[in-house]
């Protein structure tokens, strides 16, 4: 399939300006054929505009879009072999389900539309609803019809515009698994736009984190989480403890030492240090921190809050210099520490990530899910 497919989707220096603001600012990226790609970011970051430009529903102000070797920048949406699953589903209310699914096929005069549409419906396990009308189906079913309606055309690229946004949590998880199964079955390029970081991480091979019209970082989910390239990414994907520190001395044996405000020395992996920077943020994820002194790096503090969530307990620990860190302790039967207890927070060297201290420590932290 991969050998004779349409090729990769390439966006080259794409910018989209509206009257008063720039929604997408000079984005270049390549999305390999057959991959499950996610555009992740808070609302208003330009991810939907990017998607709409790929669909042809918006014209880029500058830049070009290629699918394989074909320049599709100036093509109308109906001239592109790209289909979209809209956030609102946008099913045609006057047509029954099978006619909705067959719409694209019949538009392209596909003589075999009946069989293909039924197959696509069967794929999303809704074969029995062919004669019904969209309003008769539940939200989750409508979402699957919208998916079948796009899939059935075997587009070069399939775009998903927050298609799970309107579903409740349980259905959403179910559909995430479903979508991933279908994607690996049909092998099409999927581009999934979402503001839900968990959704993007579970589903996508590659994620582009967008902020204010630009791509903050493009990587696989593990790299994004373990090695965020900016404080925005560090805060937007999960929680981060960012400790200000100064690089002290030269690295030896692949380890480097940084000194906190309080004079505590922390050992970090030398490869994590960005070159030529002395003032750094040392970032540690809450679940990497442990209460108790068996890690190499140790900080003393006082428990100020403890909230039990079932699988884990989330502690707030105040360090002597008034910085609070979040510690997530797995519920391994070790019991809950009371508020006010003096504790040692520790972690192993190499479990941190290091960022330039000139970046805003709160970037991306205050953004709520819609």
């Amino acid at each position, binding site marked *: 399939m991969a050998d004779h497919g349409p090729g990769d989707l390439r966006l080259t220096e794409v910018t989209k300006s509206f009257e008063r603001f720039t929604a997408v600012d000079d984005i270049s990226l390549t999305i390999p054929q057959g991959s499950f790609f996610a555009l992740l970011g808070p609302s208003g970051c330009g991810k939907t505009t990017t998607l709409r430009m790929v*669909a042809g529903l918006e014209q880029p102000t500058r830049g070009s879009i290629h699918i394989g070797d074909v320049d599709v920048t100036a093509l109308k949406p*109906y001239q592109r072999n*790209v289909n979209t699953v*809209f956030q*609102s589903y*946008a099913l*045609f209310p006057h047509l029954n389900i099978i006619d909705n699914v067959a*719409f694209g096929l019949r*538009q392209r005069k596909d003589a075999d539309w009946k069989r293909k549409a039924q197959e696509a419906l069967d794929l999303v396990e809704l074969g029995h609803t062919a004669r019904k009308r969209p309003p008769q189906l539940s939200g989750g079913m409508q979402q699957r019809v919208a998916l079948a309606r796009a899939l059935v*055309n075997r587009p070069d690229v399939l775009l998903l515009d927050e298609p799970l946004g309107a579903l409740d949590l349980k259905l959403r998880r179910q559909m995430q698994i479903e979508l991933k199964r279908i994607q690996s079955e049909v092998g099409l390029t999927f581009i999934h736009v979402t503001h839900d970081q968990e959704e993007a991480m579970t589903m996508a091979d590659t994620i582009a984190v967008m902020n204010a019209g630009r791509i903050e970082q493009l990587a696989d989910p593990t790299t994004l989480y373990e090695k965020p390239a900016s404080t925005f990414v560090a805060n937007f994907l999960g929680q981060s403890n960012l400790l200000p520190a100064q690089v002290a001395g030269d690295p030896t044996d692949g380890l480097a030492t940084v000194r906190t405000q309080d004079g505590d020395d922390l050992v970090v992996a030398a490869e994590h240090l960005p070159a030529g920077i002395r003032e750094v943020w040392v970032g540690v994820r809450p679940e990497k921190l442990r209460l108790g002194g068996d890690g190499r790096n140790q900080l003393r503090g006082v428990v100020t809050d403890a909230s039990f969530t079932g699988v884990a307990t989330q502690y707030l620990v105040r360090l002597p210099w008034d910085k609070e860190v979040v510690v997530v302790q797995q519920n391994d039967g070790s019991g809950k520490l009371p508020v006010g207890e003096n504790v040692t927070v520790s972690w192993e060297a190499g479990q941190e990530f290091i960022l330039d201290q000139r970046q805003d420590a709160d970037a991306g932290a205050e953004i709520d899910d819609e």
Partner: protein
Amino acid sequence: MSEALATGGPPARRARRNWVPYALLAPGLLWLIVFFAVPTLSLVSQSLQTGDVYNGYVLTWNVQTYVDALSTYWPQMVRSLVYAGLATVFTLLLGYPLAWFIAHRSGRFKNVLLVLVVAPFFTSFLIRTLAWQTILGNGGLLESTMSWLHLTWLLHGFESFLGLVNLGTGNQLLYTPFAVVSGLTYNFLPFMVLPLYANIERLDLRLVEAASDLYATPFHAFRRVIWPLSLPGVVAGTLLTFIPAAGDYINSVLLGSTQTVMIGQVIDSQFLRVLNYPLAAALSVVLMAVIIGLVMAYVRRAGTEELV
């Protein structure tokens, strides 16, 4: 205990509630009986009576009146339906883009435009139609505008065309079928625009994007998505235009000639001038039956019952 509760209070309340809907319906029902059912029956009965105004009428089930009415006045009947049909088509052609514009393109002027559509109603129907005499008449507004635009030749060409196809005398617009249909179109345009607007305004334009995404050109997106979804508005608008236009006679009286006589004019003169009540009543019944028949066929054909 629970049984006592179940059989205790509720029945009395239910009994009281039962007649409330009927009481609320009664005024409307009475109104319909007195001003619709009774007159309709009396009209049908009148059409089957014989006699004259001075000696009174007797119900003789005289069906001959219908034969006379149709054999004498079928041209006016057909003409009425054709004129009303043409006016309906023209109001649709003018009204659909207008309603679309008001609904989706007019921004903050939406309400102003809607008021403008209804504004003609603030003037009497008669006055508005008379105004068209001054527009279409020789030396009227249309002619002076055309001459100002150096397009008089176009106007005269159109007049000659009307003469050639036997729809006028070849040198004027007023008192031709063209004038009558223009008047009908103008007068009934709001009846088309308002229901269309109400329907088009609710259309989800994202469906156009979806259609376009599924390879539909703008034309196909209109034909396969927008038009079917507009049908309830189109049906409502065409009915509200066609039905009154078919029975209208003011436009024909003021803007037409003896060659444009519509069935409404005939009924009017039979009732009020010739005083042939049975004939006028028979024509009314026939017109009503024809319209009901056409409307039923049309609604069935348009398939609006399928639309949610």
